[in-house]
């Protein structure tokens, strides 16, 4: 009877229907985000890479093969930028759409399911990470910090993977969180320590053995090391595969986590 004639709506369709929403959101915010994504890397590379790096006289043997400190620190800054851009997009914004604007509740009154909402928002985060890190890599190219164009392009794709690994997991966390104070714990205990100690600013072999071991477990270190290999053109095949597997697994499990947490949160 009637049910047989009802066409099933596909996941692709439900995700695509959210394009106009995210385009509208981006139209409102792109000016600010373009400026910060160009100016911030320029400031970081100048201050940390060029000026601070000017004091560092160590050679390639102390800098994991990088000819200069600028060449060493730049890949770390890009990877950390990917993490921070992704995290920023799925912490307060996700809580806001649950608690303050209640936009998700408007969305689930339509054919969209929570998992479709997560998918579309993660695509938007991917776009934000891809454009922010794309600009960052272009700034680095201007400073001459890349060994090959192929490596530069692959490094750009790796930033998207880093972004997804963090975005999915933190999306799930934000979907569970009842109060925003939880975010300051996330930033103080997870995001900033990784930014400082996961090999972005100095080779982790300088840490004590225990801390070095701990640093090797962090997702950002895998992202930093992979990005650095690609930008310096010193790829270690097996290590690169481990990094890729780590980040991909995190993104896949994170996707499942985010979709299930938001589903639970919205199914009141």
């Amino acid at each position, binding site marked *: 009877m009637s049910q047989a004639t009802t066409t099933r709506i596909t996941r692709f*369709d439900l995700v695509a*229907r959210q394009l106009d929403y995210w385009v*509208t959101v981006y139209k409102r915010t792109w000016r600010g985000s373009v400026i910060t994504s160009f100016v911030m890397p320029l400031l970081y590379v100048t201050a940390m890479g060029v000026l601070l790096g000017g004091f560092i006289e160590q050679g390639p043997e102390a800098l994991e093969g990088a000819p200069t400190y600028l060449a060493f620190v730049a890949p770390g800054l890009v990877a950390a930028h990917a993490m921070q851009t992704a995290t920023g997009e799925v912490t307060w914004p996700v809580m806001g759409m649950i608690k303050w604007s*209640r936009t998700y509740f*408007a969305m689930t*009154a339509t*054919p969209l399911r929570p998992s479709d909402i997560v998918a579309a928002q993660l695509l938007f985060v991917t776009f934000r990470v891809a454009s922010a890190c794309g600009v960052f890599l272009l700034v680095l190219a201007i400073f001459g910090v890349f060994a090959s164009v192929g490596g530069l392009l692959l490094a750009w794709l790796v930033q998207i993977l880093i972004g997804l690994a963090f975005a999915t997991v933190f999306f799930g966390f934000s979907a569970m969180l009842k109060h925003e104070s939880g975010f300051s714990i996330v930033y103080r205990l997870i995001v900033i320590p990784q930014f400082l100690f996961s090999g972005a600013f100095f080779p982790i072999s300088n840490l004590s053995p225990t801390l070095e071991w701990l640093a090797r477990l962090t997702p950002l270190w895998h992202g930093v090391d992979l990005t650095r290999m690609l930008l310096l053109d010193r790829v270690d095949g097996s290590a690169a595969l481990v990094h890729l597997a780590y980040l991909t697994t995190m993104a896949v499990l994170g996707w499942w986590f985010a979709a299930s947490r938001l589903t639970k949160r919205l*199914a009141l």
Partner: protein
Amino acid sequence: MTLQDTPAAMVRARGLRKLYGDFEAVRGIDVEVNRGESFGFLGPNGAGKSSTMRMIAAVSPPSGGELSILGMDPQTQGPEIRSRIGVCPQEDTLDNELNVRDNLVVYGRYFGIPRREVAERADELLDFVQLTDRSRAKVEDLSGGMKRRLTIARTLVNKPDLLLLDEPTTGLDPQARHLLWDRLFRLKHQGVTIVLTTHYMDEAEQLCDRLVVMDGGRIVAEGSPLDLIRTHSTREVAELRFGVGEHEALAAKVEDLAERVEVLPDRLLLYTSDGEEALAKVHERGLSPAAVLVRRSTLEDVFLRLTGRTLVD
């Protein structure tokens, strides 16, 4: 799928339950809403109305019992069901970052309506709820009544067969309420099935062909507004006001004059088929109330009888 293919029951629930942890918000209700009908859920706060509405809206999974909406199972065909219903939530969920018209357009896109079509429909709907001159305004600059009208317009963007309205007029001024009622009447005449919750009895009498009264997660009465008054109240009510503190003692003297006498702090209510006659007998007994009022029984009398006068929260 067209409306004609849909089974007569737009909503069909059997033993429907909803649990939140240990708390049972809906305790096994049977409901059937037919095509073209206006159906109301009445009840005090916490009666389980909104939980029931969210299950019917195919967003909140039932904890037990059977539920079918437009002949489909909400567990497996949520997107297909929601494509054909319009949901007006109790709290506005309009997007404050978007202007009035974009709220309709973006929302319409979630239903897969082509851009050109949704643009036309947005203009028609703004006209329908009298917001055309505010189409470029920010949502946060609208008054409460305007926001509610915009929410109703948004609810209609997919031309729903079934409209779910959770306390649609709470917080509105009388002008805005009457405008909304008028719009809902027109939709009903176009064949749209309406399910609404309210705790305004006049709204229920105005809008509902049939309604159920819920209390503590259960249905305690069901019928048309007139049926309910006939079954659960008398034709008329005589209200007598004496001095403060005298009502309790005087109740005994008029007890036999009505089917039921209710004592309130400020007045006595005599439920009777003929209010004037009862009043005449009150005067014959030498009692002289400071003020009297004889009126028809209303749905409010039924409601208070069934769900009590005690505050729920």
